[in-house]
Each structure stands twice: as C-alpha cells, then as structure tokens.
C-alpha cells in the first residue's frame, strides 16, 4: 500500500509530465525484472504475472511515444539526479524518440505476451533470471532512445549490449552458443568504441557531452565527416550492416525465440535511431557523399542478406539474414534522405526518411512475428532445420495463419505493411534524376532496380520459408504430434499480425507518425492531406495507394466469385491421393528441400559464396550429398584480423617471462623513459 501511495505521489509531484511518466514506466520494467529474482526457479510467477505486466507497461510506453508524436509541447527535457557528480543523466523526449518508443512499445507488448507463455523452466538460465535480463534489455533500449547526453547514452547502450549478451547465452552449456555470444559481445564493443569516439569528435572542443552542446557545435567538414563515419561504423556494427554483420546470423538463432525477436525487431532499430540522431539532429550539416556511401552500404547489405537468406537451411538463420536485408533497405532509405537533403530537396528527403522510418516500424512487427512463430514451431517439433519440418499448416493452423500474414508482409506484398514502406522507398527513388549532379542523377536511379531485386528476392526467400515449414508433407514422422501453442502465445502473435494488417490497410497512420519526425528533423513532411483511407505522399496525380479499397475490392470480388461459382456450378468435391503426374509412390522425402530451393540462387550468385561440396561418386552404395556454404567475407576480413591478433598476442606474450626480475626491469625502464620525457618537455 505504501509503495502504491509513494508511486502515486511521485506521479502527482511530477505533474503528469509525459517524460516523467515514461521514466516511471521504464523504472517499472526494472522493478519487474528484480521481482523475478524473488523466486528465480518458479516459472509460475514469471509467466503469469511479470511478463504480462511487462506487456502492459510496453503498451503504456507505446501510448506515450505516440502522444509525443502528436503533442505540441515537445521536446521535453529533464535532468536525472543520477550518474557521476559532474555528469548528471539528461533525458529528452522529442518526435524522433517518440517514434522509436512507439515502435519499442508496440512490438515489445506482443513479444512480452508471447514470452509469458514461452519461457519454461529447464536447461539454461532460470526463469527469474531471464525475467531480469529481459526487462533490463527492454528498459535499456527505452533509455537509449531517451538519453540526451553522450554519457547516459553510452551507459544505456552498454547495458543493452550486456543484457542481450546474457540473453543470447542463456543456453550456455552449448559451445556454439557461447561462441556466438562471444562474437556478438566482441563486435558490439568494437561498435561501442566507435560510437564513443564519434561523440568525442561531436563535442567539438567544448568538452560538454550533452546533446544540446553538440547541436550547437560547428565542426569543420573534416571533423563532421569523421564523426559521421565513426557513427556509421559504430551503429552499423549493431545494425548488422555488411561487412560488420557476421555476429548477427550467429547470435540471433542462438537466443531463445522471444529474445531473437527482440534483438531483430527492436535492438537493430536502436542503431537506426542512433544514426538518425547523429546525422540529422546532432550534426549541423550533411554532405552528399555520406548519402551515397550509406545508400551503397545499405543496398549491398540488402542484396547480401537476401541472397544468403535464400540458401539457409535453418529457419532462424534464414530470418537473421533476412534482418540484414531489411536493415539494408532501411539504410538505403536513410542514405537517400541524406543525399536529397544535401541538395536541398527537402520534400524528397522527407519521403525517403518516411520510408526508412515506416520500414523500421514494419520490420519490428513482422520480423518479431516470424521469429516468435519459429519459436512456436521449435517448441512444438524440437526441430530448427527446414529439412525436418513440413506440413505444419494442418497441425498448427493458428501459427500457420498468423505466420502467413507475417510472410506476406515481409515479402513486401500489398495489402500488408511491408509493401507500404517499399512503395514509399521506390517513390523516393523516382525523384533521383532530379538531383542536380550530372553523374549521380544517372547512377542513383539504378539503385531502384537493386531495391526491387532485393524486395523480389525477399519474396522468394519467404515463399521458401513458409512453404517448407508449413506447407507440403511432414518430413519427419514426429511432426504428427505437433500442436498449436497456448492462448498467450497466440495472443502475442495475433497482436503483431494485427499491427501488420493495420498499417497495411490504413497506411496514413504510419505516414502521419513518420511525418512528425521528418517535420522535426528536416522541417518538411510528406503530404497527408488525403482522406484516411488512401495516401498520396507527393500529390494524388503523381502516385496514390489505398490499402483499404484494395482489400475491400478483393474481398468483394472474391465473395461474388465464390457465390457465383457456387450458384452456377455444383460444389462436388472428391478427396483423392495427389495426382503428381500419375506417380503413385511418392513420399514426403521426394519434396523439394530447403537446399533445392536455394539452388537457383547458388547458381546465379555463385561468386558471393564459398561453397564446399561433397558429391558422391557413381559407384557409391550409400551416397551422401553434403554442401557447406560460407560467407566469403569471413575469410577475407575476419580471419586475417584474427590471425594478426593471435600473432600480436604471442609477441606480447614473450614479454611475460614469469620472472620477477624481468618485470622489475620493465618498470625501471618505463620509469626512466617517463623521466626523460618529462625533462624533455
């Protein structure tokens, strides 16, 4: 009771300020996490109370984020009485952070509800500890978005990296998972170092690390570009941009499914947030070649992700590569926005940025949905390999139906949400010939073709994903016992699917939300003066789209057709064995496999891969076909670094002879050296 009244008074004294309410909610997450430690081995408390309450808090965060997008009284700032004596924590709520809080809350609510039904006690981390790590992860992501000084940002950023590291390695008895976790932690820290250095450059000699002073710093072109490039590398490592992506396909599949969903759906977006914050808010100027660089990196990551996703045989790895692809698309949008903005084409910059923002939101919905669906499949079947699944649409109709929505959405098909952002991105590409630069206006339009190739490849990948898991015949006998998950998990999936449908059918909601962000960052928003059921981002005569009418039209036509067919023709159905060109002895083993589905891609994009094939000889009595596909970049970039570090450590290791006298000599020599240096100076 006293806690409640304390909280109540706390809210009253804070005069219901949005920002303060948000901080209370974030604190709520942390308290929930700690409450998990009360009875760490009992799954009941965690599942029945803590995770659902966490989902409600997430909804609150989403609501406040949404209010921040609409409200006039932003930005709001506050200084927390935490941190170091001279470095208090600053927080700030503005349109950009509001948008990402909305994203975090909406997707986080679905994931938390799902997680309530998902986590079981068993191998690995105890449920209570999971609860702590999970909610710390959520809270730190919210704080990253709210932070208003470099110090607090880095604290939140590192908390995010560490809590997610522990979540990834929750099955820490498996060596591959420990390895994946280590790789993730390593690259996360390389990235964090770059971000730290970027902030160091951004303060511009004022030695004030609040974002406000960075906004007013006037950097020279060289230092501005340095800050930008450091930020791009730092945040790119977190986002999984090629060539800093290697941790992503290892770490995402290693984590439990709700954690994969959070990392892929939410954590990657904090990197997008970071790039946007530094590029469009903290830096006072943007150069066109930054945009070209980001565009190239984004499109290459997109293509790379899509191609690698197509040849995967593990369903979670496939989704992880697909995340690289989607992040690539988001960065392509950001690059285009920088490019347009540098040439002062603000409306088109707003269009491209809107596309990037909405794609971030969309990706957080459909990627979480699909990762969670793989979690349900994993629990129901104990298989992750596509080669052992199949036919689950008959055993798990709920998951199959909701996953179908996610599949169509991620494939960028109308009338779902993935299409909206890809359409907006294409629309902004159409204006690239207007760039007043004689070379760019010819080359950049080709990016549109790359974009369409990526989107169409994504559709290919998702047909493979859905078709092999849910359609066809079960490839293992044990799949006959698979069944749908409990109602909490279904609710989580349904919530995310609802989001996908809603944004797809009424895209104007998302357009408005992104419009307030572009309004704050660029001083320009796309056209939203259409009625609620259709959008025309530039002008109705230029291009328009209406998801609602599209869905309505298809439903009406399908309905009329169905009735007509039923009235005019008979409805007789005879159930028989499949025809398959008259071949009666087919088994489920004769279906196309995941490898088979990847084969055209392997054939066409061969130079991307390092392929090892073991082809059996004709005389082999028990033939086995084995193929191993590797990322060329691993050998090209990471292995040389690894070898160099090994050599360097060995060289340094020779200093460590283990004799006390030698060590004393080192100290003595250092002291002499320092004395000489001091006297010299």
């Amino acid at each position, binding site marked *: 009771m006293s806690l409640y009244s304390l909280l109540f008074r706390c809210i009253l004294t804070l005069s219901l300020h949005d920002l303060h309410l948000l901080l209370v909610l974030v604190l709520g997450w942390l308290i929930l996490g700690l409450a998990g430690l009360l009875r760490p081995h009992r799954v009941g408390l965690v599942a029945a109370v803590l995770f659902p309450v966490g989902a409600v808090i997430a909804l609150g965060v989403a609501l406040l984020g949404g209010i921040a997008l609409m409200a006039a009284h932003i930005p709001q700032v506050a200084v927390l009485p935490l941190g170091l004596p001279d470095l208090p924590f600053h927080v700030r709520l503005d349109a950009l952070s509001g948008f990402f809080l909305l994203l975090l809350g909406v997707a986080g609510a679905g994931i938390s509800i799902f997680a309530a039904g998902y986590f079981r006690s068993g191998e690995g981390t105890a449920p209570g500890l999971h609860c702590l790590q999970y909610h710390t992860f959520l809270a730190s992501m919210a704080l990253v978005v709210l932070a208003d000084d470099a110090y607090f940002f880095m604290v939140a950023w590192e908390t995010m990296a560490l809590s997610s590291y522990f979540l990834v390695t929750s099955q820490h008895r498996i060596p591959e998972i420990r390895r994946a976790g280590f790789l993730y932690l390593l690259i996360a820290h390389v990235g964090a170092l770059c971000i730290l250095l970027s902030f160091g450059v951004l303060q511009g000699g004022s030695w004030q690390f609040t974002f406000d002073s960075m906004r007013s710093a006037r950097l020279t072109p060289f230092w501005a570009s340095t800050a930008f490039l450091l930020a791009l590398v730092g945040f790119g490592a977190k986002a999984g941009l090629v060539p800093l992506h290697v941790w992503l396909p290892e770490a995402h599949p290693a984590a439990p499914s709700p954690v994969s969903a959070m990392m892929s759906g939410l954590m990657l977006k904090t990197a997008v947030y970071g790039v946007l914050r530094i590029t469009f808010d903290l830096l006072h100027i943007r150069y066109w070649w930054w945009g070209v660089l980001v565009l190239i990196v984004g499109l290459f990551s997109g293509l790379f992700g899509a191609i690698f996703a197509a040849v995967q045989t593990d369903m979670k790895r496939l989704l992880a590569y697909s995340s690289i692809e989607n992040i690539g698309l988001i960065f392509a949008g950001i690059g285009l926005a920088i490019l347009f903005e540098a040439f002062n084409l603000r409306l088109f910059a707003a269009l491209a940025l809107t596309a990037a923002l909405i794609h971030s939101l969309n990706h957080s919905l459909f990627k979480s949905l699909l990762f969670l669906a793989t979690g349900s499949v994993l629990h129901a079947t104990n298989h992750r390999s596509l080669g052992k699944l199949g036919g689950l649409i008959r055993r798990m109709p709920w998951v199959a139906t909701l996953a179908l929505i996610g599949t169509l959405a991620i494939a960028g098909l*109308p009338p779902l949400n993935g*299409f909206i952002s890809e*359409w907006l991105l294409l629309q902004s590409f159409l204006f690239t010939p207007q760039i007043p630069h004689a070379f760019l206006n010819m080359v950049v339009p080709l990016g549109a073709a*790359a974009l369409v*190739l990526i989107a169409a490849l994504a559709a290919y990948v998702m047909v493979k994903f859905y078709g092999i898991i849910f359609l066809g015949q079960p490839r293992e006998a044990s799949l006959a016992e698979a069944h749908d998950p409990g109602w909490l998990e279904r609710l989580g999936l349904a919530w995310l699917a609802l989001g996908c449908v809603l944004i797809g059918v009424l895209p104007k909601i998302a357009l408005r939300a992104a419009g307030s962000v572009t309004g704050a960052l660029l001083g320009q928003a796309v056209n939203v003066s259409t009625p609620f059921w259709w959008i025309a981002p530039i002008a109705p005569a230029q291009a328009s789209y*209406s998801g609602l009418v599209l869905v309505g039209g298809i439903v009406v036509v399908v309905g009329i057709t*169905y009735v007509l067919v039923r009235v005019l023709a008979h409805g007789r*159905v*005879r159930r028989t064995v499949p025809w398959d060109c008259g071949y009666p002895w087919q088994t489920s083993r004769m279906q196309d496999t995941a490898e*088979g589905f990847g084969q055209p891609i392997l054939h066409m994009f061969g130079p991307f891969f390092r392929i090892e094939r073991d082809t059996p000889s004709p005389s082999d009595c028990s033939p086995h076909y084995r193929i191993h596909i590797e990322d060329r970049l691993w050998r090209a970039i990471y292995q040389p670094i690894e070898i160099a570090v090994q050599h360097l450590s060995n060289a340094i290791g020779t200093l460590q002879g283990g004799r006390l006298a030698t060590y004393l000599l080192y100290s003595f020599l250092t002291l002499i050296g320092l004395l000489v240096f001091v006297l010299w100076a």
Partner: protein
Amino acid sequence: MGVISLVRQFSVVLLAVALAPLFAGWIAQCRAWLQSRSAPPLVQPYRMLRKLFNKDVALAKDASPLFRATPYILFGTMVLAAAIIPSIATDLPFARVADAIALIGIFATARVFLSLAAMDIGTAFGTMGARRDMMVGFLAEPALLMVLFNAFLLSGSTALPSLVEAYSAHPLSMNPSLTFAAVAFVMVLLAENSRIPIDNPTTHLELTMIHEAMVLEYSARHLALVEWASDLKLFNYACIGFALFIPWGIATHGADGGLALLLAVAVLIVKLLLAGAALALVEALSAKLRIFRAPEYLAMAFLLAVLGLLVHILLGA
C-alpha cells in the same frame, strides 16, 4: 463519383473478364496459323472453362484451406487489377487505388499465393514450379520497374491515368527512350505470363514446366479460375502496355461520353488483335530457353530499359 462513373467502372471490369479468354484464344489461333496447323475456334478457352466448371473437383486428400482459397484470391486480384488499369477510360473510381508500382505488387501477391498453393500438396513438380516461378519473378521485376521509371520521367507520374493523359496531350510523338522501354516491356510480359521463350504454355513435358507445374494438382472449377486468372493477367499486362506506349483512343477525363467509350472499346479490340498477332509471331519465331538462360534474357530486358533511361537523361528526349 457519380452513378455514371460506377457504371463505367463496372463495364471496364466486365469487359476485361469477358475479353481475357478471347484474347488467349486469339493468340492460340494466330500461333496455330503461323505453325501451319488448323486453328482451334476463338471461343475454345470458353468451352474449356465451361467443361471445367461442370466437372467434379478431385482434391488431394490433405490439401489445406490455402490451396482451396488460392484460385479465388488469384481471380479476385486479377479482376481488381483490371478495374485499376485504364483500358478504355482514365476517369475510373478505382484508378487511384494503386499506381503502376502498386500494380506490380498486386501481381506479385497473386504469384506468391499461387506458388504457396503449389507447395501445399507437397509434390515434387509443384514445388519445383513454385521455385522457378518465383525465380522468374525476381528477375523480371527490376526490368519492369526500369520500364516504369522511363514512363515516370516523361510524365512525372506513376499513376496510369495520369500517364495516359500526359501522353494523349501530344499524340503520335514517339520518344526514343520509350522505344527501348517498350521492347523491354514486351520481354518482361512474355516472361511474367509464362510464355515462350521462358515457359511454354502448351508443354506436355513436366520437367520444363513452370506455370503448368504449379497448377498440376488443380482440377475442375479451381483450375478454371486459375486459368481464367492467368488469361486475365495476360490481358492486364497487355492493357498496361497499351497505356504506357500506345495510349491513343483511351477515353480521357472530360471526353468520356457514351460514344467515346464505344470508340475506345473498338480501338482496344483492334489493339488486342494486333498485339495478339505480334505475340504469336514472337512466340512462333523463338524457342524455349533453358531455365538457366532466363537470367540472361531478363538481364537483356533490364539493360534495354536502363538504356532508355540513360537516353532520356542524356538527350532529354
């Protein structure tokens, strides 16, 4: 949006649904003549549909609801696409629902549904067809987008009605960039509609099939709807081509009285007759490519469209 425009919209849809099988029949007829065979009658596709609607459905025993719903969804998407494309008039209530890029998206939705349905039964041919069709799809879409990019550069719009109105304003001026784009479009059209040289609609050899392999498990009314939808798809593509490259005769905004509409229908039929004959000629003169030659073919289409783009930007024409 008055009653008249609704009537106009409705008649456009009915016209498309009615003409699509005839268009397919006309191409088949021309092809037969060119190959010195005796041609099937023009209404052969209709007879086929009637036969199929009267048959019993032989449904594989563990076909899922997705498999049964797909023919209706295919038909629905294609009819809706026909409602959006300005085949005879630009002032349609549905015209603003989707621009040309969104239309590609609608076609892609239909393709994905058909591919998923093909994988549903779990037969070897179905999955193979699905994989190949999706492959042709991702190769064709970039080329198609570049074609639309050309059109956009000339008119500043990707909405088909605006495109038609912009071209109709200065008739009979052929842009060099559009010429390249038109060739690219025809190549894409052949690929997307499973015709020679990418696929053979009359093949009997399962291993070379793409579209046919996907619909092997469909029968009776389901097959009828799938076939009707694919006829509609070809018809829609042809109408997009007319709107992009030869828009003359389409009743534009303000000039769409009854007489103008009748004239537009007549012009459309003439265009379809010519286009069908031309398609049949192209198909009769070329051989089906190996499936792994498809990337080269579609890359060619892509390069042509890019060439058109560069011609436009460099020459301003």
